[in-house]
């Protein structure tokens, strides 16, 4: 496989995150996300590994680009920063908002900031760069 192989695939179970479209325009979008007690990735005791939140933000950004720009081939090129507020584990029975803000497009790259929000508190956020080829 060479490095320029681009995926024309979408995630499905068990890597498909539960994200619903609410509102999106050319530069920003808002989605809803929730977690279920029987999600496959929950470890014994109900703990959700941080990587799941990281994947959720990345997939929401992809969903936003598809919503705003149409179907595309894309892959994750980098995560510039990602942080998680551990208080999220006290609120997993709630519906979260996932907000995507497009920072810039340069060439085939999309750079966006994504945050997981509940009651105006950001529980998780990151800056992601996706490639659309």
């Amino acid at each position, binding site marked *: 496989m060479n490095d320029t192989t681009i*995926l024309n695939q979408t995630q499905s179970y068990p890597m498909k995150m539960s994200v619903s479209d609410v509102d999106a325009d050319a530069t920003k979008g808002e989605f809803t996300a929730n977690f279920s007690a029987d999600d496959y990735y929950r470890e014994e005791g109900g703990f959700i590994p941080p990587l799941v939140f990281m994947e959720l933000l990345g997939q929401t950004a992809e969903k936003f680009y598809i919503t705003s720009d149409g179907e595309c081939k894309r892959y994750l090129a980098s995560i510039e920063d990602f942080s998680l507020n*551990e208080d999220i584990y006290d609120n997993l029975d709630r519906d979260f908002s996932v907000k995507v803000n497009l920072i810039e497009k340069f060439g085939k790259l999309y750079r966006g900031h994504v945050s997981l929000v509940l009651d105006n508190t950001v529980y998780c956020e990151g800056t992601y760069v996706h490639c659309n080829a």
Partner: protein
Amino acid sequence: MLKIRDIYGILPHRFPFLMVDRIVSLEKENKVVGLKNVTVNEPYFQGHFPDEPVMPAVMIIETMAQIGGFLFDMPGKRGFVISVNKAKFKRMVIPGDQLIIECSVVVHLGNKATINAVAKVDDKVVASAELAYNFVDVNESDE
């Protein structure tokens, strides 16, 4: 070297999230090298992607986090990744690859630590990142 039975005794992770097959070398508070053999039977491949299995980038990060955790002796505490910075994904990781991950300590102060991690396949860098941990009491983490 730590083999899988040793790893069971150290990491709390189990299927489907135990991402370390072997610790090749370990110098506490300095550097650790671990490996993960990537096979097509990994459960995430059925959804990523159905006709083209590629290891999800976040699973590479998780593997880094688990291997990096061996660097620290924190009795009675469990480490959680609270931030990831400068993560770059340069090549795809596919079934049949052997992921070799080298982690080194950037800083460790009290219950906080930061590491640098580099993942290679066939001696070529596939990903790199900086990860930060917060160590909490095991009882607290189980609440």
